[in-house]
């Protein structure tokens, strides 16, 4: 079974040379730490920066330079700042190549819910609705089950949707899955996890074809 860093490590393998990438809050943020350093990738943050670098050294924080998680950041050579309208021009106009975000639920048709638990948690969708409605290439990073042990990969989302039919790939602590028009297609198992265990943890239709290889996350 993978921990959060393991999930991030596996997703980092989906990041290709020349990609502009938007990382959501949580596990997705960790992905930046594991991207191969022999490829060129630029990170976009929807609050208005392209070319994000690592966190600043202590004492070098600038209140005017943050990411969408409101964390102080630095920029790399070639970075640029822009306003929110232009930021979402990049996103809505499909100039961002890959979007990685967390989810509370994903349905087998690619629907995603990650912004609201009615009556309980109403923080808002932030940029997530624009991201999922626009991106061609969306990977969800999440735990396979919730804290109660219930599957987060469902036939149908129970929570208010963030977007419809948009998720293409899911990387969880148990597996890598592709969203197909027949359901979740199992691509890879996490190290030490059996197909049986994945089946049990998946409420939505699971498609298993042939031998399922174990992930390589070295």
């Amino acid at each position, binding site marked *: 079974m993978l921990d959060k860093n393991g999930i991030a490590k596996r997703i980092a393998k989906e990041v290709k040379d020349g990609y502009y990438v938007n990382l959501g809050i949580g596990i997705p943020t960790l992905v930046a730490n594991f991207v191969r350093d022999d490829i060129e990738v630029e990170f976009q943050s929807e*609050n208005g920066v392209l070319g994000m670098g690592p966190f600043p050294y202590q004492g070098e*924080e600038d209140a005017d330079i943050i990411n969408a998680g409101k964390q102080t950041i630095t920029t790399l050579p070639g970075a640029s700042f822009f306003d929110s309208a232009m930021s979402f021009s990049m996103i809505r106009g499909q100039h961002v190549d890959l979007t990685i975000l967390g989810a509370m639920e994903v349905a087998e048709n690619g629907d995603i819910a990650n912004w609201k638990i009615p009556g309980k948690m109403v923080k808002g969708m932030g940029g997530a609705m624009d991201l999922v409605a626009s991106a061609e290439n969306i990977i969800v990073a999440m735990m396979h089950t919730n804290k109660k042990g219930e599957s987060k990969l469902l036939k149908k989302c129970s929570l208010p949707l963030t977007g419809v039919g948009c998720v293409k790939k899911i990387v969880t602590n148990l597996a890598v899955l592709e969203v197909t028009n027949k359901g979740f297609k199992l691509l890879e198992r996490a190290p030490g996890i059996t197909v049986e265990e994945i089946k049990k943890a998946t409420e939505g239709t699971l498609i298993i074809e042939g031998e399922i290889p174990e992930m390589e996350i070295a």
Partner: protein
Amino acid sequence: MINKKIDTVQQAVEGVTDNMTLMLGGFGLCGIPENAIAELVKLGVQNLTCISNNAGVDDFGLGLLLQQRQIKKMISSYVGENDEFERQMLSGELEVELTPQGTLAEKCRAAQAGFPAFYTPAGYGTEVAEGKESREFNGKMYILEKAYEADFAFVKAWKGDEAGNLIFKGTARNFNPCMCGAAKITVAEVEELVPVGELDPNHIHIPGIFVQRIFQGKNYEKRIEQRTVRTR
């Protein structure tokens, strides 16, 4: 040169009255009009509708107006860092309209640019689309979103001149440029007000035509919400 300079923060909020709709720039606590917010608290205006991406934190930014119960309705994309906000919302004291972030930015920009409405894919098939027109273009579904209507826009820039020209710094730019000229009156506060002619006309982010009042802000706290650092 048409002079937009005002001398005091009191003049900045002149004309703001109960029940008005205000736009306020900023993302989190970054690039917020600190001086104008503080003065709105002092002014004590009530029943405001505030269009702002976030709602501040409990004791800073728009949180200050929330504490005083001056806000009737918030229009935001994300409001997750504010306990008082959550309390007022769950108790029904505060009306909240959650809007996708890109849609929020463009609804401001549409008001600035004279577009009454536009089609966007964000929110199609979700709660956000309820009561809105949906429409297909080139095989993809979109919803119709309308321009905001606001009485005042309060924005914060880095540098500005007396003609109202503005330059922003870093990610403190965010929603501020989109809100300029998107309300009946736009009030800009700046960290540095320079004489006309000092700003390179090529570097101006927002021309003065979109700004009605400009003033030199004071005592910027520029609070950091999440101080993240690495070790050497």
